[in-house]
């Protein structure tokens, strides 16, 4: 079963503010150059969708109401939904902040069948969380996701094994999760548009063109998917922690860029410490006005989880970059090569003090919100908020 919240961020905002209900709204970051992360259903007829720059969305729909994202609210709501779903089955895989896969095989008898269970889930999410979702029920994850997508908004669709061939007969391949526009275009070039057409292409022809993916495509076309639902708590450890920032305007000077890097480093460090991680590789990403993106990294001997140290490394990488004269629109800092918490206690008093001050800062910010207590260097920067990345998952 696939549960997908409808226009999640936008619906959360409309739930909390009656005036926004029934109106076209777009949730985005606070800068003018940020992108739409979620658009309400009332905004979608205007052609507004997630990922579109705000300025373009405003042109398409001058009446569009912009709402600054509030990450805490979304995470909180998402956790509420996940908790409800876990009452149905412990096998809940959180795919992102607004969608989950559930293996309900073992719960069918208890809840009187798949459809009854799905209705119950929808009803409870509506009553207790106050939001609409779309639910797809099918023999596997791929088909369940397809079903929830086809039923949107506020829908419920069950695809049985018997009905699958009929559904797939005329379904465009790009409706399948995992076949994006580029793969779709490549398939169209082969004369393949629907799943049925794809399933009739010999496997050998697909593997010759797409390699290992070819075999997978063949199975997808027939509605076959054997990937299991992996409960989120069993997911392997995180591999990296990173943040990016789209700048309000293209920057040419290094000094303001360094300050942004410092802030990004602090944010990354904070998340590392929350997950009790530390990492040895620091990557700096620079995207220019023409969207050409460069990244460079450095690997250190000792794992880091403090903003200042991460910034030091990031700055050394950044200072070694020769910037193109084009102007920079996005900066990112990522820490990878993660190891589990730095539980080694420091011996030197100077390091003990540094550690203690970081811990004190964390304690204050845990209680009063991010950047309540921060470094003086970062004070002059406007404290911009931006919605949480949709790939958010609860920390294990």
């Amino acid at each position: 079963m696939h549960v997908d919240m409808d226009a999640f961020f936008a619906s959360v905002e409309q739930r909390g503010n009656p005036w926004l209900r029934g109106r076209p709204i777009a949730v985005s970051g606070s800068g003018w150059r940020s992108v739409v992360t979620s658009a309400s259903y009332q905004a979608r007829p205007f052609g507004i969708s997630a990922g579109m720059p705000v300025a373009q969305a405003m042109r398409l729909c001058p009446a569009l109401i912009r709402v600054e994202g509030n990450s805490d609210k979304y995470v909180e709501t998402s956790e509420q939904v996940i908790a409800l779903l876990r009452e149905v089955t412990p096998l809940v895989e959180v795919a992102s902040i607004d969608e989950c896969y559930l293996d309900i095989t073992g719960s069918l008898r208890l809840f009187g069948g798949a459809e009854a269970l799905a209705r119950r889930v929808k009803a409870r999410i509506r009553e207790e969380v106050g939001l609409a979702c779309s639910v797809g029920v099918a023999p596997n994850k791929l088909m369940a996701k397809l079903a929830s997508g086809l039923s949107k908004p506020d829908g419920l669709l069950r695809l049985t094994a018997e009905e699958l061939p009929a559904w797939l007969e005329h379904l465009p391949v790009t409706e399948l999760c995992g076949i994006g526009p580029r793969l779709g275009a490549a398939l169209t070039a082969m004369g393949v548009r629907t799943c049925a057409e794809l399933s009739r292409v010999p496997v050998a022809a697909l593997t010759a063109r797409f390699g290992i993916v070819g075999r997978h495509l063949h199975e997808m076309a027939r509605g076959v998917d054997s990937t299991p639902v992996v409960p989120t708590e069993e997911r392997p450890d995180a591999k990296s922690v990173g943040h990016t920032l789209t700048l309000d305007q293209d920057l040419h000077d290094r000094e303001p860029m360094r300050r942004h890097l410092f802030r990004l480093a602090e944010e990354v460090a904070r998340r590392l410490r929350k997950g009790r991680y530390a990492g040895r590789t620091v990557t700096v990403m620079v995207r220019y006005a023409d969207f050409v993106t460069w990244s460079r990294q450095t690997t250190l001997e000792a794992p880091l989880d403090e903003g200042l140290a991460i910034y030091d490394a990031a700055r050394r990488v950044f200072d070694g970059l020769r910037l193109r004269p084009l102007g920079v629109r996005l900066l990112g800092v990522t820490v990878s090569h993660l190891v589990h918490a730095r539980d080694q206690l420091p011996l030197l008093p100077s390091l003990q003090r540094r550690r203690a001050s970081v811990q004190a800062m964390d304690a204050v910010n845990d209680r009063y919100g991010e950047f309540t207590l921060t470094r003086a260097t970062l004070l002059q920067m406007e404290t911009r908020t931006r919605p949480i990345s949709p790939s958010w998952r609860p920390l294990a």
Partner: protein
Amino acid sequence: MKLTINREVFLEALQRVQGIVERKHTMPILAHILLRASPEGLELSATDLEVGLRLQYPAEVSEPGGVTLQAKKAYEIARELPERGRIGLTGRENNWVELSCGRARFRVVGLPAEEFPELPVVEGAEPFEMTAGVMAGMIEKTIFAVSTDETRYNLSGVFVESFAEKGKGVLRMVATDGHRLCLVDEEIEAKQAKRVGKGVILPRKGLLELRKMIEEGLDTVSLGLKGNSAVIRGERGVVVMRLVEGEFPDYRQVIPETAGRKVLMKREEITAGLRRVSIIANEKTRPVKLMVSAGTLVLSASHPDLGEAVEEMEVQFEGEPIEVGFNARYFLDVLNVLTGEEVELGLGDEASPAVLRAVGDEGYLAIIMPMRF
């Protein structure tokens, strides 16, 4: 410049300097070596601006002068030249260097010899002298604790100081990476007690070069200090190093006055036990737990993906039982350089530093901070 030199001698010389040559290519000249011919023979210099080597080798010089050669290429060429051959080296115009041996001829580009950075000259200062073997032992006992964290520059070398205590001279070396600290003392002649003085930080890379020189058969180490440079004289020439700038932390502050608990154990037993148990603790970040109670020490480690390991051994201990977690690597580094049958472990509580030393060796101690578990 014009000279001839034994292929074996030249190859050895080139091999010796490879470790110094800068690999990051920040300055092209640092990937080169300087060859200077004089009636005394051939002098080779290499430096990365932190550590420099200047070595003298026998050669037949018919025309004095200087050239530079790309260190790695020169080594690769010399290695492939015929054995027991005689190499001719001639400097040509525009920094070209001709290299010939048997029927092989190379013409390679060099850089102007004048562009090669001058190694600092440390003259005048009365050198500190010490038996090479003793010095090598002190380096061995400290160098592993030097920080490799580039952000802690002041910990990137071994702190060396000399002083007089009870009428005797003492040379002390201290190294720390912020989590553990090693300190070794050796007696020196009283008249030398002031020669190193209140302390310098010798860079790790320089000490590794010094150790190499000692291994090559040096009897006495002669260390001269001036300004921010140190020079060590060997048979073939000198190692020059830039002292690490920055202040070494006050190590006396972190040495526990008295340890609450004293555990005596067999060195070989604890070493082997830790090696075994730490296979499971694996990664750098997972602690090995030490549980001490009357007469017994239990080592244990667990890993969520691997499993667990436990080993029990007899020790001499009376007092309150305690459980403390440590990075096993830190213990093993120290145990590997200790001698003698018994080691003494001083423990405070779960969050205080442990002191590890060999019974009967008052001159060496290691302090290790626990891990939370």
